[in-house]
Protein backbone atom coordinates (compact mmCIF):
# COMPACT_ATOMS: atom_id res chain seq x y z
CA UNK A 1 0.00 0.00 0.00
CA UNK A 2 2.78 2.45 0.91
CA UNK A 3 4.64 1.42 -2.23
CA UNK A 4 1.51 2.11 -4.28
CA UNK A 5 0.84 5.45 -2.58
CA UNK A 6 4.42 6.65 -2.97
CA UNK A 7 4.58 5.53 -6.58
CA UNK A 8 1.28 7.24 -7.42
CA UNK A 9 2.30 10.39 -5.57
CA UNK A 10 5.53 10.54 -7.61
CA UNK A 11 3.58 9.85 -10.81
CA UNK A 12 1.19 12.64 -9.89
CA UNK A 13 4.08 15.01 -9.28
CA UNK A 14 5.69 14.05 -12.57
CA UNK A 15 2.42 14.50 -14.50
CA UNK A 16 1.77 17.80 -12.74
CA UNK A 17 5.21 19.17 -13.62
CA UNK A 18 4.78 18.24 -17.28
CA UNK A 19 1.36 19.89 -17.26
CA UNK A 20 3.05 22.96 -15.85
CA UNK A 21 5.42 23.14 -18.84
CA UNK A 22 2.35 23.17 -21.09
CA UNK A 23 0.25 25.46 -18.96
CA UNK A 24 2.99 28.06 -18.38
CA UNK A 25 3.14 29.00 -22.06
CA UNK A 26 -0.62 28.81 -22.45
CA UNK A 27 -1.41 30.99 -19.46
CA UNK A 28 1.02 33.69 -20.61
CA UNK A 29 -0.29 33.75 -24.18
CA UNK A 30 -3.79 33.78 -22.76
CA UNK A 31 -3.16 36.27 -19.98
CA UNK A 32 -0.92 38.77 -21.72
CA UNK A 33 -2.18 38.69 -25.26
CA UNK A 34 -5.76 37.71 -24.42
CA UNK A 35 -5.50 35.10 -27.14
CA UNK A 36 -7.18 31.69 -26.95
CA UNK A 37 -4.73 29.28 -28.50
CA UNK A 38 -6.40 25.93 -29.09
CA UNK A 39 -3.37 24.93 -31.17
CA UNK A 40 -1.12 24.85 -28.10
CA UNK A 41 -1.74 21.09 -27.89
CA UNK A 42 -0.73 20.76 -31.53
CA UNK A 43 2.56 22.50 -30.81
CA UNK A 44 3.10 19.93 -28.04
CA UNK A 45 2.39 17.14 -30.53
CA UNK A 46 4.64 18.64 -33.20
CA UNK A 47 7.34 19.11 -30.57
CA UNK A 48 7.16 15.43 -29.63
CA UNK A 49 7.42 14.41 -33.30
CA UNK A 50 10.38 16.75 -33.85
CA UNK A 51 12.16 15.27 -30.84
CA UNK A 52 11.41 11.72 -32.01
CA UNK A 53 12.70 12.47 -35.52
CA UNK A 54 15.83 14.27 -34.25
CA UNK A 55 16.53 11.46 -31.78
CA UNK A 56 16.36 8.94 -34.57
CA UNK A 57 18.67 10.99 -36.77
CA UNK A 58 21.21 11.82 -34.05
CA UNK A 59 20.93 8.48 -32.23
CA UNK A 60 20.98 10.32 -28.91
CA UNK A 61 17.94 11.27 -26.85
CA UNK A 62 19.47 14.39 -25.35
CA UNK A 63 20.73 15.81 -28.65
CA UNK A 64 17.36 14.92 -30.16
CA UNK A 65 15.55 16.71 -27.33
CA UNK A 66 17.61 19.85 -27.82
CA UNK A 67 17.28 19.91 -31.60
CA UNK A 68 13.57 19.03 -31.49
CA UNK A 69 12.75 21.77 -29.00
CA UNK A 70 14.78 24.29 -31.01
CA UNK A 71 12.92 23.24 -34.16
CA UNK A 72 9.56 23.65 -32.46
CA UNK A 73 10.60 27.08 -31.15
CA UNK A 74 11.49 28.09 -34.71
CA UNK A 75 8.07 26.91 -35.89
CA UNK A 76 6.51 28.91 -33.07
CA UNK A 77 8.41 32.00 -34.22
CA UNK A 78 7.17 31.58 -37.79
CA UNK A 79 3.58 31.06 -36.61
CA UNK A 80 3.69 34.10 -34.38
CA UNK A 81 5.08 36.34 -37.11
CA UNK A 82 2.73 35.09 -39.80
CA UNK A 83 -0.55 34.40 -38.01
CA UNK A 84 -0.83 35.03 -34.28
CA UNK A 85 0.35 38.63 -34.55
CA UNK A 86 -2.84 39.32 -36.51
CA UNK A 87 -5.04 37.40 -34.09
CA UNK A 88 -4.19 39.27 -30.88
CA UNK A 89 -6.43 42.20 -31.68
CA UNK A 90 -9.27 40.03 -32.96
CA UNK A 91 -12.13 38.68 -30.83
CA UNK A 92 -12.14 35.28 -29.15
CA UNK A 93 -14.35 33.78 -31.86
CA UNK A 94 -11.81 34.49 -34.58
CA UNK A 95 -9.03 33.13 -32.41
CA UNK A 96 -10.93 29.92 -31.77
CA UNK A 97 -11.71 29.49 -35.46
CA UNK A 98 -8.13 30.18 -36.58
CA UNK A 99 -6.47 27.97 -34.00
CA UNK A 100 -9.03 25.21 -34.60
CA UNK A 101 -8.00 25.39 -38.25
CA UNK A 102 -4.37 25.07 -37.13
CA UNK A 103 -5.25 21.87 -35.24
CA UNK A 104 -6.76 20.38 -38.40
CA UNK A 105 -3.71 21.37 -40.44
CA UNK A 106 -1.18 20.16 -37.84
CA UNK A 107 -2.84 16.76 -37.33
CA UNK A 108 -3.10 16.10 -41.03
CA UNK A 109 0.42 17.37 -41.78
CA UNK A 110 1.86 15.06 -39.12
CA UNK A 111 -0.13 12.18 -40.60
CA UNK A 112 1.28 12.96 -44.05
CA UNK A 113 4.88 13.22 -42.88
CA UNK A 114 5.13 10.51 -40.20
CA UNK A 115 2.14 8.29 -41.00
CA UNK A 116 -0.85 7.34 -38.86
CA UNK A 117 1.05 4.83 -36.72
CA UNK A 118 2.49 6.02 -33.39
CA UNK A 119 6.22 6.79 -33.54
CA UNK A 120 8.49 5.05 -31.02
CA UNK A 121 10.66 7.22 -28.84
CA UNK A 122 12.91 5.38 -26.37
CA UNK A 123 14.39 6.86 -23.22
CA UNK A 124 18.20 6.91 -23.05
CA UNK A 125 19.56 3.41 -22.27
CA UNK A 126 21.16 4.53 -19.01
CA UNK A 127 17.73 5.52 -17.67
CA UNK A 128 15.73 2.56 -18.94
CA UNK A 129 15.68 0.58 -15.67
CA UNK A 130 14.18 1.29 -12.25
CA UNK A 131 16.02 2.90 -9.35
CA UNK A 132 16.00 1.36 -5.91
CA UNK A 133 15.82 3.57 -2.86
CA UNK A 134 14.87 3.03 0.73
CA UNK A 135 12.58 5.04 2.92
CA UNK A 136 11.61 4.30 6.55
CA UNK A 137 13.27 0.92 6.31
CA UNK A 138 11.33 -0.16 3.17
CA UNK A 139 12.82 -0.48 -0.28
CA UNK A 140 11.06 1.10 -3.24
CA UNK A 141 11.53 0.85 -6.97
CA UNK A 142 10.77 3.71 -9.31
CA UNK A 143 11.62 4.13 -13.02
CA UNK A 144 14.80 6.19 -13.37
CA UNK A 145 13.49 8.04 -16.41
CA UNK A 146 10.47 9.30 -14.49
CA UNK A 147 12.75 10.61 -11.75
CA UNK A 148 14.75 12.49 -14.38
CA UNK A 149 11.54 14.01 -15.72
CA UNK A 150 10.64 15.15 -12.21
CA UNK A 151 14.08 16.70 -11.78
CA UNK A 152 13.77 18.37 -15.19
CA UNK A 153 10.33 19.70 -14.31
CA UNK A 154 11.45 21.11 -10.97
CA UNK A 155 14.50 22.66 -12.63
CA UNK A 156 12.49 24.36 -15.39
CA UNK A 157 9.80 25.49 -12.95
CA UNK A 158 12.51 27.03 -10.73
CA UNK A 159 14.20 28.75 -13.66
CA UNK A 160 10.87 30.05 -14.90
CA UNK A 161 10.06 31.38 -11.45
CA UNK A 162 13.40 33.22 -11.30
CA UNK A 163 12.91 34.52 -14.82
CA UNK A 164 9.40 35.82 -14.17
CA UNK A 165 9.82 36.99 -10.59
CA UNK A 166 13.39 38.34 -10.54
CA UNK A 167 14.36 39.67 -13.97
CA UNK A 168 13.45 42.79 -15.89
CA UNK A 169 11.90 40.83 -18.76
CA UNK A 170 9.87 38.89 -16.23
CA UNK A 171 8.64 42.14 -14.75
CA UNK A 172 7.49 43.27 -18.21
CA UNK A 173 5.69 39.97 -18.65
CA UNK A 174 3.91 40.31 -15.32
CA UNK A 175 3.07 43.92 -16.08
CA UNK A 176 1.72 42.91 -19.47
CA UNK A 177 -0.48 40.26 -17.87
CA UNK A 178 -2.00 42.59 -15.30
CA UNK A 179 -2.44 45.69 -17.48
CA UNK A 180 -1.45 45.66 -21.11
CA UNK A 181 -2.29 49.28 -22.01
CA UNK A 182 -0.33 50.65 -19.08
CA UNK A 183 2.67 48.52 -20.01
CA UNK A 184 2.57 49.85 -23.55
CA UNK A 185 2.23 53.39 -22.28
CA UNK A 186 5.39 52.91 -20.22
CA UNK A 187 7.31 52.34 -23.43
CA UNK A 188 7.77 48.58 -23.36
CA UNK A 189 8.00 47.04 -26.81
CA UNK A 190 5.00 44.83 -26.28
CA UNK A 191 5.08 43.35 -29.76
CA UNK A 192 8.61 42.01 -29.29
CA UNK A 193 7.62 40.83 -25.82
CA UNK A 194 4.64 38.96 -27.28
CA UNK A 195 6.85 37.24 -29.83
CA UNK A 196 9.37 36.24 -27.18
CA UNK A 197 6.67 34.88 -24.85
CA UNK A 198 5.01 32.92 -27.64
CA UNK A 199 8.27 31.34 -28.80
CA UNK A 200 9.24 30.56 -25.22
CA UNK A 201 5.84 28.97 -24.57
CA UNK A 202 6.19 26.85 -27.70
CA UNK A 203 9.64 25.67 -26.61
CA UNK A 204 8.27 24.72 -23.17
CA UNK A 205 5.40 22.66 -24.56
CA UNK A 206 7.71 20.99 -27.10
CA UNK A 207 9.99 20.13 -24.17
CA UNK A 208 7.03 18.55 -22.37
CA UNK A 209 6.13 16.65 -25.54
CA UNK A 210 9.68 15.38 -25.98
CA UNK A 211 10.06 14.34 -22.33
CA UNK A 212 6.68 12.60 -22.24
CA UNK A 213 7.29 10.96 -25.62
CA UNK A 214 8.96 7.82 -24.22
CA UNK A 215 6.18 7.38 -21.63
CA UNK A 216 3.16 7.99 -23.87
CA UNK A 217 2.80 7.15 -27.51
CA UNK A 218 3.88 9.87 -29.95
CA UNK A 219 0.81 9.93 -32.16
CA UNK A 220 -1.67 12.11 -34.03
CA UNK A 221 -4.23 13.67 -31.71
CA UNK A 222 -2.04 13.41 -28.59
CA UNK A 223 -2.31 17.16 -28.22
CA UNK A 224 -6.07 17.48 -27.90
CA UNK A 225 -6.62 15.62 -24.65
CA UNK A 226 -3.67 17.27 -22.97
CA UNK A 227 -4.77 20.68 -24.22
CA UNK A 228 -8.02 20.40 -22.28
CA UNK A 229 -6.07 19.46 -19.14
CA UNK A 230 -3.80 22.46 -19.62
CA UNK A 231 -6.86 24.70 -19.92
CA UNK A 232 -8.28 23.23 -16.73
CA UNK A 233 -4.97 24.00 -15.03
CA UNK A 234 -4.81 27.64 -16.05
CA UNK A 235 -8.47 28.21 -15.22
CA UNK A 236 -7.97 26.75 -11.75
CA UNK A 237 -4.79 28.74 -11.27
CA UNK A 238 -6.08 32.00 -12.71
CA UNK A 239 -5.31 33.13 -16.24
CA UNK A 240 -1.98 34.91 -16.69
CA UNK A 241 -0.47 33.78 -13.42
CA UNK A 242 2.64 31.59 -13.49
CA UNK A 243 2.28 30.82 -9.81
CA UNK A 244 -1.33 29.83 -10.41
CA UNK A 245 -0.24 27.60 -13.29
CA UNK A 246 2.26 25.83 -11.04
CA UNK A 247 -0.23 25.29 -8.21
CA UNK A 248 -2.97 24.32 -10.67
CA UNK A 249 -0.75 21.79 -12.48
CA UNK A 250 0.32 20.13 -9.26
CA UNK A 251 -3.30 19.95 -8.07
CA UNK A 252 -4.60 18.60 -11.38
CA UNK A 253 -1.66 16.20 -11.82
CA UNK A 254 -1.96 14.64 -8.40
CA UNK A 255 -5.77 14.64 -8.18
CA UNK A 256 -6.03 12.98 -11.59
CA UNK A 257 -3.33 10.38 -10.94
CA UNK A 258 -4.32 9.56 -7.38
CA UNK A 259 -8.01 9.57 -8.30
CA UNK A 260 -7.50 7.03 -11.05
CA UNK A 261 -5.33 4.84 -8.82
CA UNK A 262 -7.24 5.00 -5.56
CA UNK A 263 -10.89 5.84 -6.26
CA UNK A 264 -11.93 2.44 -7.64
CA UNK A 265 -10.44 0.71 -4.56
CA UNK A 266 -11.99 3.24 -2.24
CA UNK A 267 -15.44 2.90 -3.80
CA UNK A 268 -15.28 -0.89 -3.62
CA UNK A 269 -14.98 -0.56 0.13
CA UNK A 270 -18.03 1.69 0.33
CA UNK A 271 -20.44 0.48 -2.37
CA UNK A 272 -21.64 -2.84 -3.78
CA UNK A 273 -19.17 -4.30 -6.27
CA UNK A 274 -21.05 -3.72 -9.53
CA UNK A 275 -21.97 -0.11 -8.66
CA UNK A 276 -18.36 0.58 -7.70
CA UNK A 277 -16.95 -0.91 -10.89
CA UNK A 278 -19.11 1.38 -13.07
CA UNK A 279 -18.85 4.46 -10.92
CA UNK A 280 -15.13 4.24 -10.11
CA UNK A 281 -13.59 4.89 -13.54
CA UNK A 282 -16.31 7.42 -14.41
CA UNK A 283 -15.77 9.41 -11.25
CA UNK A 284 -11.98 9.20 -11.59
CA UNK A 285 -12.03 10.67 -15.10
CA UNK A 286 -14.36 13.55 -14.24
CA UNK A 287 -12.75 14.34 -10.90
CA UNK A 288 -10.63 17.24 -12.17
CA UNK A 289 -13.58 18.76 -14.02
CA UNK A 290 -15.67 18.58 -10.85
CA UNK A 291 -12.77 20.20 -9.03
CA UNK A 292 -12.57 22.96 -11.61
CA UNK A 293 -16.32 23.61 -11.56
CA UNK A 294 -16.20 23.69 -7.78
CA UNK A 295 -13.30 26.16 -7.70
CA UNK A 296 -14.92 28.40 -10.30
CA UNK A 297 -18.16 28.32 -8.34
CA UNK A 298 -16.45 29.82 -5.30
CA UNK A 299 -13.64 31.74 -7.02
CA UNK A 300 -14.86 32.68 -10.54
CA UNK A 301 -11.41 34.16 -11.36
CA UNK A 302 -9.36 31.14 -10.33
CA UNK A 303 -7.07 30.77 -7.34
CA UNK A 304 -4.45 33.40 -8.24
CA UNK A 305 -6.03 35.95 -10.59
CA UNK A 306 -3.38 37.99 -12.44
CA UNK A 307 -5.68 40.96 -12.84
CA UNK A 308 -6.63 41.72 -9.30
Amino acid at each position, binding site marked *: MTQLLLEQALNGLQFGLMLFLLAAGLTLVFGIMDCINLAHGSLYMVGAYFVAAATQAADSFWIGLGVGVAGAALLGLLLELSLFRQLYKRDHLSQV*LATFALILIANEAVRVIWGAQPVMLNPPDALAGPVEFSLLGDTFFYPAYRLVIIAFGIGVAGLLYLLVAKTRVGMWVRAGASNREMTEALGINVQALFTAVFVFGTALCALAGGLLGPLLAVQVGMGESVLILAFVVIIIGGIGSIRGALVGSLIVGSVDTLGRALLPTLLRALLPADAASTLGPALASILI*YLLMAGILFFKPQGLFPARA
Partner: protein
Amino acid sequence: MAFYRAAPYQQPVAIALVLILAALPFVLTAFGQEFYIGFATRVLIFALAASSLNLVLGFGGMFSLGHAAFFGIGAYAAAICQQAGVNEALIAFPLAMLAAGSFALAVGAISLRTRGVYFIMITLAFAQMAYYLFISARSLGGDDGLPLAGRMTLAGVPLTDDTSLYFAAFFGLTLAMLFFGRLADARFGRVIQAIRENETRMEALGYPVFTYRLVCFALGGALAGLAGALLANLTGLASPNLLVWTQSGTLLVMVIIGGVGYLYGGVVGALILLCLEEVLVGFTSHWHIVLGLILLGVVLFAPKGVAALFGKRHG
Protein backbone atom coordinates in the same frame (compact mmCIF):
# COMPACT_ATOMS: atom_id res chain seq x y z
CA MET B 1 -22.62 44.26 -32.58
CA ALA B 2 -26.10 45.42 -33.45
CA PHE B 3 -29.62 44.08 -33.27
CA TYR B 4 -30.88 41.49 -35.63
CA ARG B 5 -33.62 42.62 -38.03
CA ALA B 6 -34.85 40.55 -40.93
CA ALA B 7 -33.83 41.97 -44.30
CA PRO B 8 -36.81 42.83 -46.58
CA TYR B 9 -35.91 40.08 -49.04
CA GLN B 10 -35.41 37.53 -46.30
CA GLN B 11 -38.96 36.17 -46.26
CA PRO B 12 -39.23 35.47 -50.00
CA VAL B 13 -35.77 33.89 -49.93
CA ALA B 14 -36.81 31.71 -46.99
CA ILE B 15 -40.02 30.60 -48.74
CA ALA B 16 -38.10 29.77 -51.91
CA LEU B 17 -35.59 27.83 -49.84
CA VAL B 18 -38.34 25.83 -48.11
CA LEU B 19 -39.87 24.95 -51.50
CA ILE B 20 -36.50 23.90 -52.90
CA LEU B 21 -35.74 21.78 -49.84
CA ALA B 22 -39.19 20.17 -50.00
CA ALA B 23 -38.63 19.22 -53.64
CA LEU B 24 -35.02 18.12 -53.18
CA PRO B 25 -35.49 14.40 -52.36
CA PHE B 26 -37.82 13.94 -55.34
CA VAL B 27 -35.37 15.68 -57.65
CA LEU B 28 -32.50 13.55 -56.32
CA THR B 29 -34.54 10.39 -56.76
CA ALA B 30 -35.49 11.40 -60.30
CA PHE B 31 -31.81 11.77 -61.16
CA GLY B 32 -30.93 8.50 -59.45
CA GLN B 33 -28.83 10.21 -56.75
CA GLU B 34 -30.62 8.73 -53.71
CA PHE B 35 -27.27 8.56 -51.90
CA TYR B 36 -27.32 12.32 -51.50
CA ILE B 37 -30.65 12.27 -49.62
CA GLY B 38 -28.78 10.92 -46.59
CA PHE B 39 -26.15 13.64 -47.02
CA ALA B 40 -28.83 16.32 -47.30
CA THR B 41 -30.43 14.98 -44.09
CA ARG B 42 -27.08 15.30 -42.34
CA VAL B 43 -26.79 18.90 -43.52
CA LEU B 44 -30.28 19.70 -42.20
CA ILE B 45 -29.52 18.10 -38.82
CA PHE B 46 -26.24 19.95 -38.43
CA ALA B 47 -27.96 23.14 -39.58
CA LEU B 48 -30.37 22.67 -36.66
CA ALA B 49 -27.53 21.97 -34.21
CA ALA B 50 -25.50 24.95 -35.41
CA SER B 51 -28.58 27.20 -35.28
CA SER B 52 -29.18 26.18 -31.68
CA LEU B 53 -25.62 27.20 -30.88
CA ASN B 54 -26.15 30.42 -32.80
CA LEU B 55 -29.11 31.21 -30.51
CA VAL B 56 -26.83 30.87 -27.49
CA LEU B 57 -23.69 32.39 -29.00
CA GLY B 58 -24.91 34.90 -31.54
CA PHE B 59 -28.06 36.17 -29.84
CA GLY B 60 -27.32 35.44 -26.21
CA GLY B 61 -23.65 36.39 -26.49
CA MET B 62 -22.65 33.32 -24.47
CA PHE B 63 -19.51 31.73 -25.87
CA SER B 64 -20.17 28.08 -25.08
CA LEU B 65 -17.54 25.52 -26.01
CA GLY B 66 -19.59 22.61 -24.69
CA HIS B 67 -22.56 22.58 -27.01
CA ALA B 68 -21.80 19.09 -28.31
CA ALA B 69 -22.80 17.70 -24.90
CA PHE B 70 -26.44 18.67 -25.50
CA PHE B 71 -26.26 17.31 -29.02
CA GLY B 72 -24.90 13.99 -27.75
CA ILE B 73 -27.34 13.76 -24.86
CA GLY B 74 -30.21 14.15 -27.32
CA ALA B 75 -28.83 11.24 -29.34
CA TYR B 76 -28.43 9.05 -26.25
CA ALA B 77 -31.90 10.01 -25.00
CA ALA B 78 -33.41 8.85 -28.30
CA ALA B 79 -31.53 5.55 -28.11
CA ILE B 80 -32.55 5.01 -24.48
CA CYS B 81 -36.19 5.80 -25.32
CA GLN B 82 -36.11 3.16 -28.00
CA GLN B 83 -34.61 0.61 -25.62
CA ALA B 84 -37.38 1.42 -23.17
CA GLY B 85 -39.92 0.58 -25.87
CA VAL B 86 -40.81 4.10 -26.99
CA ASN B 87 -40.42 4.03 -30.76
CA GLU B 88 -42.59 7.04 -31.56
CA ALA B 89 -40.56 10.13 -32.41
CA LEU B 90 -43.38 12.44 -31.30
CA ILE B 91 -42.73 11.17 -27.76
CA ALA B 92 -39.02 10.36 -27.97
CA PHE B 93 -37.89 13.63 -29.57
CA PRO B 94 -39.55 15.91 -26.98
CA LEU B 95 -38.06 13.67 -24.29
CA ALA B 96 -34.62 14.07 -25.90
CA MET B 97 -35.15 17.85 -25.94
CA LEU B 98 -36.22 17.71 -22.32
CA ALA B 99 -33.14 15.71 -21.31
CA ALA B 100 -30.72 17.98 -23.18
CA GLY B 101 -32.57 21.10 -22.04
CA SER B 102 -32.51 20.06 -18.38
CA PHE B 103 -28.80 19.32 -18.56
CA ALA B 104 -28.27 22.71 -20.20
CA LEU B 105 -30.30 24.31 -17.44
CA ALA B 106 -28.09 22.74 -14.78
CA VAL B 107 -24.86 23.59 -16.63
CA GLY B 108 -26.05 27.13 -17.29
CA ALA B 109 -27.08 27.69 -13.67
CA ILE B 110 -23.48 27.11 -12.59
CA SER B 111 -21.56 28.39 -15.63
CA LEU B 112 -23.41 31.69 -15.98
CA ARG B 113 -21.91 32.83 -12.71
CA THR B 114 -18.60 33.19 -14.55
CA ARG B 115 -17.66 35.60 -17.32
CA GLY B 116 -15.61 35.68 -20.50
CA VAL B 117 -12.92 33.09 -20.91
CA TYR B 118 -13.92 31.36 -17.70
CA PHE B 119 -17.38 30.74 -19.12
CA ILE B 120 -15.87 29.21 -22.27
CA MET B 121 -13.78 26.87 -20.19
CA ILE B 122 -16.41 25.85 -17.66
CA THR B 123 -18.88 24.91 -20.41
CA LEU B 124 -16.07 22.88 -21.96
CA ALA B 125 -15.43 21.20 -18.60
CA PHE B 126 -19.08 20.18 -18.24
CA ALA B 127 -19.11 18.77 -21.76
CA GLN B 128 -15.99 16.75 -20.93
CA MET B 129 -17.70 15.42 -17.81
CA ALA B 130 -20.68 14.28 -19.85
CA TYR B 131 -18.32 12.72 -22.41
CA TYR B 132 -16.42 10.72 -19.79
CA LEU B 133 -19.63 9.66 -18.06
CA PHE B 134 -21.02 8.22 -21.30
CA ILE B 135 -17.70 6.57 -22.15
CA SER B 136 -17.47 4.81 -18.82
CA ALA B 137 -21.15 3.86 -18.53
CA ARG B 138 -21.06 0.21 -19.57
CA SER B 139 -24.85 -0.08 -19.63
CA LEU B 140 -24.82 2.58 -22.39
CA GLY B 141 -22.24 0.74 -24.48
CA GLY B 142 -19.17 2.62 -23.22
CA ASP B 143 -16.74 3.45 -26.03
CA ASP B 144 -18.87 1.75 -28.66
CA GLY B 145 -21.97 3.82 -28.04
CA LEU B 146 -25.58 2.74 -27.97
CA PRO B 147 -26.96 1.39 -31.26
CA LEU B 148 -30.58 1.87 -32.32
CA ALA B 149 -32.45 -1.26 -33.32
CA GLY B 150 -33.94 0.63 -36.26
CA ARG B 151 -35.33 4.03 -37.11
CA MET B 152 -38.29 5.36 -35.17
CA THR B 153 -41.76 6.19 -36.42
CA LEU B 154 -43.04 9.75 -36.70
CA ALA B 155 -46.80 9.96 -36.02
CA GLY B 156 -47.01 6.30 -37.01
CA VAL B 157 -45.06 6.73 -40.26
CA PRO B 158 -41.86 4.66 -40.15
CA LEU B 159 -38.74 6.71 -40.94
CA THR B 160 -37.04 3.68 -42.45
CA ASP B 161 -36.46 5.04 -45.93
CA ASP B 162 -34.17 8.02 -46.35
CA THR B 163 -36.82 10.32 -47.81
CA SER B 164 -39.12 10.12 -44.79
CA LEU B 165 -36.25 10.75 -42.40
CA TYR B 166 -35.22 13.67 -44.60
CA PHE B 167 -38.68 15.14 -44.16
CA ALA B 168 -38.56 14.59 -40.41
CA ALA B 169 -35.31 16.58 -40.28
CA PHE B 170 -36.75 19.14 -42.70
CA PHE B 171 -39.83 19.69 -40.49
CA GLY B 172 -37.66 19.85 -37.40
CA LEU B 173 -35.39 22.49 -38.92
CA THR B 174 -38.24 24.51 -40.44
CA LEU B 175 -40.17 24.61 -37.17
CA ALA B 176 -37.01 25.50 -35.26
CA MET B 177 -36.17 28.30 -37.70
CA LEU B 178 -39.73 29.70 -37.56
CA PHE B 179 -39.52 29.64 -33.77
CA PHE B 180 -36.04 31.14 -33.87
CA GLY B 181 -37.11 33.92 -36.23
CA ARG B 182 -40.12 34.81 -34.10
CA LEU B 183 -38.02 34.67 -30.96
CA ALA B 184 -35.30 36.92 -32.35
CA ASP B 185 -37.83 39.61 -33.17
CA ALA B 186 -39.93 39.19 -30.03
CA ARG B 187 -39.47 40.81 -26.64
CA PHE B 188 -37.37 37.91 -25.39
CA GLY B 189 -35.03 38.17 -28.36
CA ARG B 190 -34.63 41.92 -27.95
CA VAL B 191 -33.88 41.59 -24.27
CA ILE B 192 -31.37 38.82 -24.76
CA GLN B 193 -29.59 40.79 -27.48
CA ALA B 194 -29.60 43.90 -25.34
CA ILE B 195 -27.99 41.89 -22.55
CA ARG B 196 -25.32 40.80 -25.01
CA GLU B 197 -24.69 44.46 -25.88
CA ASN B 198 -24.73 45.92 -22.38
CA GLU B 199 -25.32 43.69 -19.44
CA THR B 200 -24.89 46.36 -16.78
CA ARG B 201 -27.47 48.63 -18.35
CA MET B 202 -30.04 45.86 -18.61
CA GLU B 203 -29.36 44.91 -15.02
CA ALA B 204 -29.89 48.53 -14.00
CA LEU B 205 -33.15 48.68 -15.98
CA GLY B 206 -34.42 45.89 -13.78
CA TYR B 207 -34.28 42.95 -16.17
CA PRO B 208 -33.48 39.61 -14.55
CA VAL B 209 -30.32 39.20 -16.66
CA PHE B 210 -29.31 35.85 -15.20
CA THR B 211 -32.73 34.28 -15.81
CA TYR B 212 -32.97 35.53 -19.40
CA ARG B 213 -29.52 34.15 -20.15
CA LEU B 214 -30.30 30.85 -18.47
CA VAL B 215 -33.54 30.39 -20.42
CA CYS B 216 -31.74 31.18 -23.68
CA PHE B 217 -28.96 28.72 -22.83
CA ALA B 218 -31.45 25.95 -21.95
CA LEU B 219 -33.48 26.60 -25.14
CA GLY B 220 -30.32 26.25 -27.18
CA GLY B 221 -29.52 23.01 -25.38
CA ALA B 222 -32.99 21.61 -26.01
CA LEU B 223 -32.83 22.39 -29.74
CA ALA B 224 -29.41 20.76 -29.92
CA GLY B 225 -30.98 17.72 -28.24
CA LEU B 226 -33.55 17.53 -31.02
CA ALA B 227 -30.76 17.58 -33.58
CA GLY B 228 -28.97 14.83 -31.68
CA ALA B 229 -32.09 12.62 -31.61
CA LEU B 230 -32.47 13.08 -35.38
CA LEU B 231 -28.82 12.25 -35.97
CA ALA B 232 -29.10 9.07 -33.89
CA ASN B 233 -31.92 8.02 -36.23
CA LEU B 234 -29.83 8.81 -39.29
CA THR B 235 -26.67 7.00 -38.21
CA GLY B 236 -28.40 4.33 -36.11
CA LEU B 237 -26.01 4.98 -33.24
CA ALA B 238 -25.68 7.23 -30.21
CA SER B 239 -21.90 7.51 -30.08
CA PRO B 240 -19.78 9.15 -27.37
CA ASN B 241 -17.87 10.74 -30.27
CA LEU B 242 -20.78 13.16 -30.58
CA LEU B 243 -19.73 14.68 -27.26
CA VAL B 244 -16.01 15.12 -27.95
CA TRP B 245 -14.94 18.72 -27.60
CA THR B 246 -13.82 18.89 -31.22
CA GLN B 247 -17.49 18.34 -32.10
CA SER B 248 -18.30 21.50 -30.14
CA GLY B 249 -15.49 23.12 -32.09
CA THR B 250 -17.00 22.00 -35.39
CA LEU B 251 -20.40 23.45 -34.46
CA LEU B 252 -18.68 26.71 -33.48
CA VAL B 253 -16.84 26.77 -36.78
CA MET B 254 -20.14 26.34 -38.62
CA VAL B 255 -21.72 29.26 -36.77
CA ILE B 256 -18.68 31.49 -37.25
CA ILE B 257 -18.39 30.72 -40.96
CA GLY B 258 -22.11 31.23 -41.44
CA GLY B 259 -22.35 34.41 -39.42
CA VAL B 260 -22.65 34.85 -35.68
CA GLY B 261 -25.92 36.47 -34.67
CA TYR B 262 -27.56 36.20 -38.08
CA LEU B 263 -30.76 34.16 -38.20
CA TYR B 264 -29.49 31.85 -40.92
CA GLY B 265 -25.87 31.83 -39.76
CA GLY B 266 -26.03 28.25 -38.48
CA VAL B 267 -27.80 26.94 -41.57
CA VAL B 268 -25.42 28.61 -44.01
CA GLY B 269 -22.38 27.52 -42.00
CA ALA B 270 -23.47 23.87 -41.76
CA LEU B 271 -24.21 23.81 -45.48
CA ILE B 272 -20.85 25.31 -46.39
CA LEU B 273 -18.75 23.20 -44.03
CA LEU B 274 -20.39 19.85 -44.85
CA CYS B 275 -20.38 20.53 -48.61
CA LEU B 276 -16.73 21.55 -48.42
CA GLU B 277 -15.97 18.28 -46.63
CA GLU B 278 -17.91 16.26 -49.18
CA VAL B 279 -16.15 17.95 -52.11
CA LEU B 280 -12.67 17.90 -50.61
CA VAL B 281 -12.87 14.22 -49.63
CA GLY B 282 -13.34 13.48 -53.32
CA PHE B 283 -10.10 15.25 -54.22
CA THR B 284 -7.65 14.23 -51.54
CA SER B 285 -7.52 12.09 -48.43
CA HIS B 286 -5.65 14.92 -46.75
CA TRP B 287 -8.62 17.26 -47.04
CA HIS B 288 -8.22 18.46 -43.45
CA ILE B 289 -5.24 20.57 -44.54
CA VAL B 290 -7.25 22.25 -47.29
CA LEU B 291 -10.20 22.78 -44.94
CA GLY B 292 -7.88 24.27 -42.33
CA LEU B 293 -6.39 26.67 -44.86
CA ILE B 294 -9.87 27.72 -46.01
CA LEU B 295 -10.91 28.37 -42.39
CA LEU B 296 -7.79 30.47 -41.87
CA GLY B 297 -8.73 32.40 -45.00
CA VAL B 298 -12.23 33.01 -43.62
CA VAL B 299 -10.81 34.34 -40.35
CA LEU B 300 -8.39 36.66 -42.06
CA PHE B 301 -10.53 37.89 -44.94
CA ALA B 302 -14.25 37.36 -44.13
CA PRO B 303 -14.42 37.86 -40.38
CA LYS B 304 -18.17 38.46 -40.28
CA GLY B 305 -19.23 35.20 -41.89
CA VAL B 306 -21.20 34.50 -45.02
CA ALA B 307 -24.74 35.13 -43.71
CA ALA B 308 -23.67 38.74 -43.12
CA LEU B 309 -24.38 39.13 -46.81
CA PHE B 310 -28.03 38.09 -46.35
CA GLY B 311 -29.32 39.61 -43.13
CA LYS B 312 -29.11 43.18 -41.95
CA ARG B 313 -28.35 44.40 -38.51
CA HIS B 314 -29.35 47.84 -37.43
CA GLY B 315 -27.33 49.86 -35.01
